[in-house]
């Protein structure tokens, strides 16, 4: 069980949205984690430094938050094998699908991109179905 946190989740969502808006205003880029991450995996594109800076900020902020006494609940209810298999599938999927939750689900839908709306519907249905099968068919 995890605690229902509508207000905290809404506030977090607004911050994610602000980040997307500022990245467009200042850098003119989509705040999609897939594209940003792919841009620091060799062969490196010429504009890799801003992506590395974005990633550093994204990982460092939660670190500073918990060091300052903030609490971020975290639990991994799956096996290491599931993390590895899931990670590989996610990596292949977002590369072919050209985006993930942040790029398609937030930035793309906000632009009313038909590609992003399609991608988001597909990956959400696939995730609901997968969790149903894993938890209620196989009972993991």
């Amino acid at each position, binding site marked *: *069980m*995890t*605690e*229902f*946190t509508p*207000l*905290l*989740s*809404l*506030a*977090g*969502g*607004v*911050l*994610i*949205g*602000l*980040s*997307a*808006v*500022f990245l*467009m205003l200042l*850098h003119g880029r*989509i705040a999609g984690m897939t594209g940003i991450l792919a841009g620091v995996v060799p062969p490196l594109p010429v504009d890799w430094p801003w*992506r590395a*800076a974005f990633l550093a*900020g994204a*990982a*460092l*902020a*939660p670190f500073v938050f918990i060091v300052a006494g903030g609490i971020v*609940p*975290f*639990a991994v*209810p*799956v096996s290491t094998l*599931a*993390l*590895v298999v*899931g*990670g*590989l599938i*996610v*990596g*292949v999927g*977002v*590369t072919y*699908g*050209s985006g*993930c*939750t942040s*790029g*398609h689900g937030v930035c793309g*839908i906000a632009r009313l991109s038909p*590609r992003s709306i399609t991608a988001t519907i*597909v*990956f959400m249905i*696939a995730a609901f*179905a*997968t969790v149903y099968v894993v938890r209620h068919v196989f009972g993991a």
Partner: protein
Amino acid sequence: MPKLLSAFIIGAIFGLGIALSGMANPAKVLNFFDIAGTWDPSLAFVMGGALVTTAIGYRLVFGARQRPLFEKSFGLPTSRAIDLPLVGGSALFGVGWGIAGFCPGGAVPALGLGHPETPVFLAAMIAGIALARWIKVRGSSVVAAQQTPSRGA
């Protein structure tokens, strides 16, 4: 330098938003997808908050400016094709997300929380990105046909 500093700060806002929202917590993500079991609808509020903010903000940005502050033009995805790579890749992503509970945007900020599971997922995901690229390059060189590379969000 101001470009890098601004990207760093914007990344920090993103990472803090992810951490506060619960998207960095695989247990919470998997519970969101488990309607038939321990359902936690919180993540619908993350998507709602992020989408409304971005939709309004983008309109203000594109309405007020011809170009971003630091670059010559907006770098927006141009592909409009709803094709097999988009649909199949997205379906795969959803399956992997449902197996591991991490998505790319959740896992990078989760790295800062210092739990040992996160780098395991991230390493596997980066291997998956490299693998998919290798297959793509190999496929296109075998076909040896002129193809326009599709690079999206």
